[in-house]
């Protein structure tokens, strides 16, 4: 299945990537996706493994144990600083 991944703010700059489409297995967690993406991005990818990184799935904030399904939109980003 395919998953759309977006990166925002400092994380986007560290990875030098705003987003990508990747093949992924249904039923795997966001944490496993982050680990795989970190590998793909080499040294810069370690930024994805930082404890401060947050995630959203289909535009809702989720924890790293959330399970992904086909067609999900996932985003990784630093802590939010709005307001």
């Amino acid at each position, binding site marked *: 299945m395919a998953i759309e991944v977006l990166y925002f703010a400092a994380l986007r700059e560290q990875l030098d990537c705003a987003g990508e489409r990747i093949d992924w297995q249904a039923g795997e967690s966001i944490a496993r996706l982050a680990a795989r993406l970190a590998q793909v991005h080499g040294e810069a990818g370690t930024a994805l493994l930082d404890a401060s990184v947050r995630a*959203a799935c289909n535009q809702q904030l989720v924890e790293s144990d959330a399970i992904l399904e086909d067609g999900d939109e996932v*985003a990784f980003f630093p802590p*939010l600083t709005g307001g």
Partner: protein
Amino acid sequence: MLQYEPYVSVQAEDFCLSSEQRSLHELLQSADGEMNVGALASFVGLVRAERDPEYGPLRALQIEHYAGMTERSLLDICAQAQRKWQLITCRVIHRVGRIAPGHQIVMVMVAAMHRGDAFAGCEFIMDYLKTSAPFWKKACYTGGQRWVAARAHDQQRSARWQG
């Protein structure tokens, strides 16, 4: 009690607090049925002028957002506030893009029957949007730029509304 769906906007353009207040007031006055609103509370957040020890004075904040998720999360925060405090309605405007020191970033406006609910609802929405709405600020100084770090203080203010 008459309630209206919250109104939110994420936009680059500046806003005018008194125009927003006037338009909300007109909406409430035009309601069929009883005019039960007794309190309108509002908050405006500005870019603070600051000086970085290494990079010098702030020239602007650059605000980025996750288009689509921002509007949904602001509506969700407003809906929570409306339920918790029996608010008649809320309006939130949050700007994105480049904003200079002294200029406006965000507006929260709330209508309720009584001032206790209006003040609390307004503060809740501001505290929550600082930690739950997907915006990120980059501070651009004369000599460099750095992403603004999330503050533990904001997390604590958000957390105190739970329970």
